[in-house]
């Protein structure tokens, strides 16, 4: 049995803005097991980063967790004090970002910054700290660590800086490493180095990794399980094979049709129609309804409930509920009253946008 390390339950995160409340994350739930590599994918603005930052409670000043629970080893950390949270950050969970230059301080040496991270999160002192800093650089594959520790961030390439960030994040062996677009700014060959390093460290140290990216290739390469987000909600979640080979949300299906892959090289890509969602003006029903080819009347009116497709797969799309209703296989967990248009025998079929 795998052990659940982190459990996010019906999380809502919002931002105060001049134009009103931006509901960036709208009721997401998922688990992270010990040692699992979880990918969060979705279009720009879908709430991937905000979800990750909510776990760490490092939201911008105008952001706040509105409701929901985040259980770490059974304890709801949304109730924790800032002091407890700062222990949590680093000891239990660390984060690395897309652009390591913005997270490294240009006026201090790499050594200063790693040693600071070690002192902050462990009770190591003096020479122990220096030794640990060297050890960490070696761990992330940096040659000649003694020399590197004395250098400044600008003296390092992008890939090297990302290694330094990973070393700092690992200073006290957290249970979870969150990586927000860790390789988006890097070249393909350097990206491969960093991804390989992360998987290697995950095996060595047994930590869980949450990787946030818009790149389905990186997700396929890295992840055991995947969460697909759209408009601040989870469309579907499941094992990598389920999401790629048995997608059960129209957004995921559209996304997979729209990207070049090995098997559609000679074919025309099929774009997703319409333009990205406006978070200030969320539709009443499914967040994807305005761009969905299969959109039914119910999709415009009600948010689809997440239901289980199989042991490895959950999805929130009215199409599934419709199909299961028709097949007489609606799962027990479907609690809501079945909307009029999905009741059999009449009212089936497409409602469309009209």
């Amino acid at each position, binding site marked *: 049995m795998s052990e659940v390390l982190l459990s996010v339950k019906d999380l809502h995160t919002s931002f105060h803005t001049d134009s009103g409340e931006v509901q960036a994350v709208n009721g997401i739930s998922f688990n992270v097991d010990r040692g699992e590599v979880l990918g969060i994918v979705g*279009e*720009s603005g879908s709430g991937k980063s905000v979800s990750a930052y909510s776990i760490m409670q490092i939201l911008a000043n105008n952001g706040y967790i509105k409701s929901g629970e985040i259980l770490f080893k059974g304890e709801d950390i949304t109730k924790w004090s800032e002091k407890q949270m700062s222990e949590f950050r680093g000891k239990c969970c660390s984060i690395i970002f897309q652009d390591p230059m913005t997270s490294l301080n240009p006026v201090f040496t790499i050594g200063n910054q790693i040693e600071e991270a070690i002192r902050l999160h462990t009770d190591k002192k003096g020479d122990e700290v220096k030794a640990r800093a060297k050890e960490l650089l070696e761990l992330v594959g940096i040659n000649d660590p003694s020399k590197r520790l004395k250098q400044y961030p600008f003296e390092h*390439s992008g*890939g*090297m800086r990302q290694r330094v960030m990973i070393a700092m994040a690992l200073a006290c062996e957290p249970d979870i490493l969150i990586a927000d677009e860790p390789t988006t700014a890097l*070249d*393909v*060959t*350097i*990206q*491969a*180095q960093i*991804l*390989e390093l992360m998987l290697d460290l995950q095996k060595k140290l047994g930590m869980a990794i949450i990787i946030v990216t*818009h*790149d*389905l*290739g*990186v*997700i*396929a*390469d890295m992840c055991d399980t995947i969460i697909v987000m759209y408009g601040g909600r989870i469309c579907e979640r499941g094992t*990598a*094979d389920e999401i*790629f080979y048995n997608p059960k949300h129209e957004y995921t299906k*559209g*996304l*997979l049709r*729209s*990207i*070049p*892959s*090995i*098997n*559609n*090289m000679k074919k*025309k*890509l*099929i*774009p*997703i129609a319409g*333009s*990205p969602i406006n978070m200030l003006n969320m539709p009443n029903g499914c967040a994807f309804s305005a761009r969905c080819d299969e959109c039914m009347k119910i999709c415009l009116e009600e948010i689809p409930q997440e239901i289980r497709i199989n042991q490895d797969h959950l999805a929130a799309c009215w199409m599934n509920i419709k199909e299961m209703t028709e097949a007489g296989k609606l799962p027990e967990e479907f609690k809501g009253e079945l909307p009029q248009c999905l009741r059999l025998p009449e009212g089936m079929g497409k409602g469309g946008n009209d």
Partner: protein
Amino acid sequence: MEKNRPLVEVEHLKEYFKVTDGFHKLTLKAVDDVSFSINAGETLGLVGESGCGKTTVGRTILRLYTPTAGTVRFDGEEVTAKNIGHMRKKMQMVFQDPYSSLDPRMTVEDIIGEPLDVHKLYDNRKDRRERILHLMELVGLNAEHARRYAHEFSGGQRQRIGIARALAVNPEFIVCDEPVSALDVSIQAQVINMFEELQDKLGVAYLFIAHDLLVVRHISKKIAVMYLGKMVEVADADEVSDHPLHPYTESLMSAVPIPDPKIARERHRIILEGDVPSPLHMPSGCPFRTRCRYATEKCAQEMPPLTDRGGEHFSACWNK
């Protein structure tokens, strides 16, 4: 349109920049003796590590930079400082960033109309307007949008505006420098399709620069691979991807993230050691030798020439 008519022929092109490291004057060889050709109506994809000289190749072909050495011929005629004004009607460029490359205070109509004005490509106001609307239709923009400002559009729409402007002069060749990189994945497909459709319809040739290798493979007939200012491999797109010859291309292709978990699990990534050397301190001989697992003594002594290994598959390597 005749097949296989070379439209753009680049020979021994060099573009050196004079730079300084604060103490010394140095020469940065951004593009160093590069030769290739692009057929009419075809797409050549150009890939390689950041800073390897892709943008510089594109800009030098269009003479936005004066070449340090070498020649560019367009349709058989050498491009020179003298004739570039009139050549620009046939060669255009589309940039990466749809946000910064358009003036937000201009309407769509002004933006697309500008090259028409510059090259006096219409008879009267009515004709001008009709041409603009036709161009907007070509790239899938709504005629009602003509009077709106660029900043009112989404990234994908702005990229379409930029392309409509490039098309205004009826070019035969467009340098597309990372034209979809700034767009969300769901929008990329629309723009890629548009490039492909325009080529089918109008027969334009593209030099297509991008870092997403699957995008490049999808759109390109041939792919050229650069490393530190040198061209290291050129061949048919599938050939380069599936049977790369050059050791750099080999590891590059093995590392491309593929959105398919089964393929991802089965394949073997060749992870390169270290980083690309600084272009100011080029290694002797082959530029890739510092990271190459096949490197031999000869590689440090002499730059391998780009030669045809059969079936128009070119590689520049002593050992592969």
